[in-house]
């Protein structure tokens, strides 16, 4: 028996020692566990910059839907937002990790910081406080991240953007770039241009010494070597569409877009100013036929917030979107951050005295570059600039804001709406009737599901209330009391 045991115990030893033999040789053949950072960069760029559909545009009163449409935004009923930015941020985090792990070029780290800042700002503008310092740490077992206050978030974001600028070199190229064809300097310009947008969005916080909005702003503008900014439309951050299945313009096969008509809010301003962009934005109405596109009076609009029965009844006699937006595979590139926006931001900064430049020349350059985007000849632009839009310092903020708003037609997602919100001072202090209602003045129609008001924010996602209850409750209570779409977030409250 003992002998036998010795004789066969080798079998036992053999088995025990080889229990996990070969386990490490099995590789996942179905999915990759490692990818080059460039592929993540491409995916992130796509998800971040892909053109947003109509929600931000309709609520900004550029055009109206004539058969009701499905979007709650049309009636200013801003419901629950989702946290889809975090889905992109997961990949931003992977871009950071893979860059470090694979010792890839540092500029990817800079790009990761830019995207993190960009997406966090995009989200906080929609809802208010969001998780930042605790966010994206599920792998460290933080599954219920705390909400950072908007102030802490902005301080951190501005720092991230500074670091991004440091990490992105002024020369050289980057692989996987679908926005700027690999030119790193354009990313560097985007980072700084975007930072100025962020600083301007905090104009109500001029007095906050923890942020020093004006100083930070001036530091950038005054040091173009360190902080290069966009210098022409060629520097615009735009998302291009291709006539290839899956990469076509969002309205390439949409019949819904045929139902949009010029909104009176925009139409009246364009017509009053004899703005040559009107024929780039809209077509003449189908009926009566044969309208001359150069004749401003043929463009007809529909008021925002009218019942569908009204809007659909005048569908044929009002101005639809310009045909190039509809049914075209490539449409028009979708601008996310632009040179003309930068000019209006600089104009406002000069107006506010943050920088020393000439307000009017920034203002004019903004209008000019916006018109140039639509290939309007310089002669036409010069005539236009000399007309009703001519800068008048007594109405400076109103003019800058209005032109900035027009420049956002069919681009930059919610920026038009958020800037309107920022300038809507009376909304935040109803006791003072002398404050502006926002530039330009928006119409409130009879069809409004928010008690005749334009909302200030979206609600937090429903599942966040289930999955991160305590932190969300705390964040909601400290900001708004209840998760109210008319709640006023920190960045809008004048200090």
């Amino acid at each position, binding site marked *: 028996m003992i002998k036998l045991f010795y004789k066969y115990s080798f079998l036992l030893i053999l088995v025990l020692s080889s229990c996990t033999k070969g386990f490490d040789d*099995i590789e996942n053949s179905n999915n990759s566990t490692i990818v080059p950072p460039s592929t993540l960069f*491409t*995916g992130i760029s796509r998800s971040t910059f892909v053109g947003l559909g109509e929600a931000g545009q309709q609520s900004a009163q550029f055009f109206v839907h004539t058969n009701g449409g499905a979007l709650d935004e049309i009636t200013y009923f801003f419901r629950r937002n989702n946290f889809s930015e*975090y889905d992109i941020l997961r990949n931003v985090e992977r871009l950071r990790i893979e860059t470090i792990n694979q010792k890839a070029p540092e500029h990817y780290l800079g790009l990761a910081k830019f995207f993190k800042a960009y997406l966090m700002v995009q989200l906080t503008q929609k809802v208010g406080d969001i998780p930042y310092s605790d*966010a994206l740490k*599920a792998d460290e077992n933080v599954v*219920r991240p705390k909400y950072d206050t908007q102030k802490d978030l902005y301080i951190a974001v501005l720092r991230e953007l500074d670091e991004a600028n440091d990490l992105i070199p002024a020369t050289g190229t980057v692989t996987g770039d679908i926005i700027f064809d690999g030119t790193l300097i354009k990313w560097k310009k985007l980072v700084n241009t975007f930072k100025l947008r962020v600083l301007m969005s905090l104009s109500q916080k001029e007095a906050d010494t923890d942020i020093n909005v004006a100083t930070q702003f001036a530091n950038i503008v005054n040091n173009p070597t360190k902080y290069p900014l966009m210098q022409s439309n060629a520097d615009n951050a735009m998302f291009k569409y291709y006539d290839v299945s899956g990469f076509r313009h969002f309205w390439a096969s949409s019949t819904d877009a045929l139902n949009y008509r010029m909104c009176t809010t925009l139409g009246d301003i364009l017509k009053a100013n004899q703005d040559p962009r009107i024929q780039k934005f809209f077509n003449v109405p189908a009926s009566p036929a044969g309208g001359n596109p150069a004749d401003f009076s043929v463009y007809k609009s529909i008021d925002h917030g009218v019942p569908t029965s009204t809007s659909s009844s005048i569908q044929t006699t009002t101005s639809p979107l310009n045909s190039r937006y509809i049914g075209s595979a490539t449409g028009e590139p979708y601008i996310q951050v632009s040179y003309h926006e930068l000019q209006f931001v600089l104009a406002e900064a000069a107006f506010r005295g943050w920088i020393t430049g000439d307000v009017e020349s920034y203002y004019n350059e903004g209008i000019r570059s916006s018109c140039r985007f639509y290939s309007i000849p310089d002669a036409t632009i010069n005539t236009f600039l000399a007309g009703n839009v001519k800068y008048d310092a007594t109405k400076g903020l109103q003019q800058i804001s209005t032109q900035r708003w027009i420049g956002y037609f069919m681009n930059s997602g919610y920026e038009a709406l958020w800037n309107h919100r920022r300038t809507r001072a009376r909304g935040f202090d109803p006791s003072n009737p002398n404050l502006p209602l926002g530039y330009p003045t928006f119409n409130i129609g009879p069809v409004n599901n928010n008690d005749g008001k334009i909302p200030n924010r979206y609600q937090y996602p429903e599942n*966040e209330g289930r999955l991160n209850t305590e932190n969300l409750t705390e964040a909601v209570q400290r900001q708004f009391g209840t998760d109210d779409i008319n709640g006023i977030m920190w960045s809008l409250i004048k200090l």
Partner: protein
Amino acid sequence: MNLLKCFNRLQSSFKKLKIFCFAFVQFFLLTAYVNAENNFVESEIIRQSSFKGKVVDENNLPLIGVSASVKGKSISTMTNAEGEFSLRAAVGDVVVFSYMGFETFEYPVRTLEPAFVKLVPTTSALNEVTVTALGIKREKKSLGYSVQEIKGEVFEKVKEPNIIASLTGQVAGLTVYNKTGTFQAPAFNIRGSSSILVVIDGVPMGTDTWSINPDDVDKIDVIKGATGAALYGAAGSNGVIMVTTKKGGNNPRGLSVNFNSSSVFNAGYVALPEYQTEYGQGLNGQYVDGTSYLHMWGPKLNQPDPTTPSGFVEFPQWNSPRDPVTGEKIPLPWITRNTNPIKEIMENGYTLNNSVSVGGNNDLGDFRVGYNDIYRKGNTPNTNLFNRTFDVSGGYKFYDKLKVDAKVSYNNLSSDNYEDVGYNWDNFILHIGNNLGANVDLEDLKNYWVPGQEGLTQRTWNPGRNNPYWHLNENIHVYNRDRFSGWVKANYEFSKHLNLTARISQVYNSLQQERKENKGNLASTSNLDGSYTNSSSRSTDMNADWLLRYNKKHFNETIGIDALIGGNARVINSRALSGGASSLILSDFYNLSNKADFNTASNSSSKKLVNSFYGTLNLDWKSKIYLGITGRNDWSSSLTRPNNSYFYPSFSLSGIVSEMVSLPRFVSFAKVRASWATGRNDVAAFWNDMVYSIGNFNGTPTASYGASLNSSNLMPDKTESAEVGLDLRFFNGRLGFDMAYYTKIDKDQISTTAISGASGFTGKRENGGGIITKGFEYSINGSPIRNTNFTWNSTVNLSYYKQYVHSLAPGQTKYGTYYRMGERINRVRGLEFERSESGDIIYAAGLPVLTTTYEPISSGEYVDPKLVYGFINNFRYKNWGLNMVIDGRVGGVMYNYMYANMMISGAAKQTAVDGVRDKQFIGTGVKVIGGELLKDVSGNVVYDSRQYAPNDVPVDYYAWVQTAYKNNYSVNAFDATYIKLREVALSYQIPKNWLKKTAIKNASVALVGRNLLLYTGVLYTDPDVGSDDAGQGPSVRNIGFNLNINL
């Protein structure tokens, strides 16, 4: 790996193999006859100089195949068909007679006069031997857990294409849900768990049940708990179906040939939807042709109109020919043209099952070759199923101590077309079942192409529904699977008490599936231009194991030790490749090149290794108390270190009370048993990897990371089961009672719980909640009558279980979506009538109000049945035998989609009774006349001041039905209770003397029937299917015959 190559080669030459197989069988049929003749001559010679006699059972019936051997000498024989034996024995020798199921008998030879030996059946479980995990034979009485045995005869006469169907009602604790499709395996669970391991001859074969050839089965042992299966590891933790196949060694000495033929035919239906035949298609009493979503709420049929040529009301209809001059549709009479479209479209299917086996054995070895061929023609037209199995098995004793056994089995499972099932628009039953009414001429529908647009555009009565004949002929599913399995086992006996077994086995599966969808599909989910997909997959599952077993009684035979150690290495490989063509260029041509739009292609592969080491120790004290301990450790490649190594033990204890205390005389055997076991289950290969999915943006590669965070410290999930049982036999085994109570906890279940998206991931995969199953099983068997000419054996199986939430995932307040801690699960949820406090249905504008959320229905019912039972009777009178299986379930709720849809569409018979359509309808209930109902956000009533008056608002009947039956559990959910006459087999054993001059040793014929009678409150469909009819077809009755011949 050589084995795999061998399989591959075999597969590639399958056609040759088939020819070879037939030739082989024919050869043996021929030689068998010759051999039988020779044997006869040979035994004549021996008989003259030997000890001979006859062996009978307690009823004086001859026992065939009884082993008779001379004690201490290597002389042995077996009894022939007459129970006769003869062997060379001298006066003074002791001849030992042994036979399964009977007490071994030693006969001292005093004279060479013919002996008349009567064997006594084993009255207790004393000597019953059963096959336990890893193929180890052990005495049944020593087991501390529940095993139920089904003998091969159960499958001999009445055949099902899938053997699991034949197990319905046979085992307490095994619930089988039979389905009606041509190619649908029954769903089944043991003690509420559906992932059941199939083991054939000790070798794990995965979960496939199609490749068990019923004629190859000697017996099936169903191991219900985790204890008995502990040695099979994870796969066996929910129970094991252990198949022991027939061996050449089971045949009498020499060559034997068995031929079995069974044919069953569809003979009507036990469950079938019923149609109204008074109204045709349309809505609100108006005929609608063309554009609308059609229902059978049209005008009344068969209305006389003396002004028309037919004498009935006429108007243009979907199939009206057009006037060649005006192009207008010509009016047709509006009359009943079919009475039940399902019944009229369905055909009479049948199942043919033929098998032949040849076996033989001698002192040194045995072999068996078997071929089984099942062909089913489905009752759905143009469907069929082939299931063919070819087995070779054999063993040989190379030395006294070394025996090698091997088996190779090849199974081909194929279908030229089988119907799609389930609640989707590829299920043709849904197209006809819900919407094809009495006005439609089915003969006319058979021309299913629009003339001039053959192969492009369908001609159908309803623009939103496929023409059933188009569907049956142009929407094809092809299936072809080859499965090889084989094993080689060597057993070396070091001594009587110590032996070593080494075994290697492999299962190889190769599956090819095609989906051919011609142009013109109107099903909403499908492509109007047709499509074709072709997918294939291959997988191998290899196990290599060894076992060292020691078995000896010690200490004056008081302590028995049965100890075993062993190890297993398992390699699982799989590969799949699939291609698709969308939008066909040519109609009815299925090739991946025939694509107008694009091709799709995908592939996958995986590999997993599991190594195991295990041991058992079984101790017994004087064969009265038994203690069993097992332990197994697995190392799995699909988990990360250190969690990829996990150990799980089991313990069992049983005591033979009847041997320890004196019990009343009528108690012949009493055993109590208890066991506790754990099981651990790993995950599929790569399942826990964090991966990127890759894509491109207009040619630039992109990648994105998975949204679910997989835990790197994922543990295998865990099963803990405990069982106590009682095994009693009375009146010398004439009455037996076996009872088991068990609890089974499935915990640390791996699931993905939702987490805040701000954490970077939307879900986290982790070990989480668990459920506990508690249940009882009873099996009562008895032989109320047992005498020379007439015996009656009867078995009753009863079982039930309930499942409760046992634990929750970290941070969760509910198990899954619904259930709180401790709550019973599988509660029925759905919409129902809104009712007033007094229970009246509330009406608004004459229509009933339904609840809006899928909350538990007010009756508080559960999906699981309250009781599952089987009642099996075997009668034998002289040469006649009658087998009868009755089974059923009590309770459980079934949602009846077929019924609901047919009510809503107005096709159901119930929608046209008592002229209900011809008058205004006032639903019974109340309407709200004042007051208010306020609910908080959670749906709880804050206050209710509503006042009611009887509903008096008349509505159209169709409007009422369409509201009342939409997703409404109050009317569409049925109590799934049923009782079924599952099986009857009347057999006749051809008297031996008729066969005397032939080579036939035994022959029997039988008249058989399956699924014969159904009694249930469920309308239109067979509740056998489970908790949801899933739009299944009618339930068919089968009647046929069986012929069994032994050479």
